[in-house]
């Protein structure tokens, strides 16, 4: 019997064959040791390729991973840290996602024209606040008042009582100048994260998880309903926004200024490790 061509095995492995062709090819492969070995080789090469590319990803452009702060929430500690991104800020002239750059001080000689200077400063008080639904009660003044005054009514989603809302137990923060990645870990699917923009249309929220959260929105407020076991919620702020404070209730876990961890609460039950950039 004729053996299966390599490209057909690749198409089979990739799920690109129609049902009839797939059944026929599979039927042959299962009874032909040579084709079975060839398919195993295809799959093995794919696995090697995936591993090799992941090795490159681990060395992704250095500026994307210049500083890392990891906070592990100890037993009995507040379950859900708040992350407050504070001003002063300048309004980005363009969508902020286009302003994600590596820190200017460490930027290699540019092949492009220098960026134009920022428009006149429009200063705002408080920035945005990322909070779990169950943690809303510990928002601090005066930001809370501002949020109460301006936030829209609750987003119309299926209601989950705060006590039953799954909560993440830890977080992983990667500050990069102009962008902050916040990864919430160990939360069950269905965990809800509210992001109150508070008149900050230049603050962007995205997920890079394999399973994207369900985003539902109302003016001034965005809710991310998480899926899967590891949650990756990315918050992108304008480059001019330099200060990020990570809070659990009133407890300050960490302060990141200009992409560097400047203060942490390692002595208060949280483990926060940071790798300083530039070393």
């Amino acid at each position, binding site marked *: 019997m004729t053996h299966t*061509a*390599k*490209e*057909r*095995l*690749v*198409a089979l492995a*990739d799920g*690109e064959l129609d049902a009839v062709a797939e059944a026929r090819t599979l039927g042959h492969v299962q009874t032909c040791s040579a084709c079975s070995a060839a398919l195993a*080789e*295809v799959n093995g*090469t*794919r696995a*090697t*390729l*995936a591993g*090799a*590319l992941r*090795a*490159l*990803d*681990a*060395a*992704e*452009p*250095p*500026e*994307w*991973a*210049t500083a890392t702060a990891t906070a592990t929430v100890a037993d009995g500690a507040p379950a859900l840290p708040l992350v407050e991104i504070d001003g002063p800020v300048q309004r980005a002239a363009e*969508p*902020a*996602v*286009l302003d*994600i*750059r*590596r820190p200017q001080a460490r930027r*290699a000689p540019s*092949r*492009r024209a220098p960026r134009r200077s920022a428009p006149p400063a429009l200063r705002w008080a408080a920035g945005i606040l990322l909070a779990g639904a169950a943690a809303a009660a510990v928002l601090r003044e005066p930001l809370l008042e501002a949020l109460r005054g301006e936030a829209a009514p609750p987003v119309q989603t299926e209601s989950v009582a705060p006590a039953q809302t799954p909560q993440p137990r830890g977080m992983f923060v990667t500050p990069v100048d102009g962008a902050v990645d916040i990864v919430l870990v160990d939360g069950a699917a269905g965990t809800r994260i509210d992001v109150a*923009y508070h008149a900050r*249309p230049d603050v*962007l*929220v*995205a*997920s*890079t998880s394999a399973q*994207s959260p369900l*985003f539902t*929105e*109302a*003016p*001034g407020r*965005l809710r991310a309903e998480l899926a899967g076991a590891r949650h990756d919620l*990315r918050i*992108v702020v304008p480059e001019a926004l330099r200060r990020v404070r990570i809070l659990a209730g009133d407890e300050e876990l960490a302060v990141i200024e200009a992409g560097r961890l400047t203060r942490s609460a390692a002595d208060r039950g949280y483990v926060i490790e940071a*790798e300083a*950039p*530039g*070393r």
Partner: protein
Amino acid sequence: MMETLPMRSARSAEIAQWQRELLRYVHRLTGDPDLSEDLAQDALLRLLKAEGDRAPDNPRAWLYRVATNLVRDHARRAAMMRDRPIPVDADAPVTPAQAYERSATVAQVRAVLQRLAPRDREILILSESGFRHREIAEIIDVKPQSVSVLLARALERFRTAYLAEVPR
């Protein structure tokens, strides 16, 4: 400019995700962090401009196609992939990530990829990025029915190159 916050933020979330993907894609192809940022941003800017006229049917594949062409153009201009695989500035402080980039594992992977033709690199990385064959065809501009043949050959060449660079 988007008119309303909800539209804008939903759109922005999508764009932020694409940007991250494109950074990874271009970096996998070239090993050049500066170039990754420049080309990823160029591709996104082109998408925003293109959407002023007519939105692409598959924006993600469209972005990868633009990024692929930008990498090809750059390689043609500077022979970047052969002559400038990884930029190294001996005087610059070495970050942990840079140190890793220069480590043996990464150097081996880069060497394996450098042994391949640009189109083989593209098709392998796109395939690992989760694109269907018809999308890969659209991105690298080949016939859809050719993709499994090209991919099979690229995998075979990768395997050969890998065994040569990383002997068991």
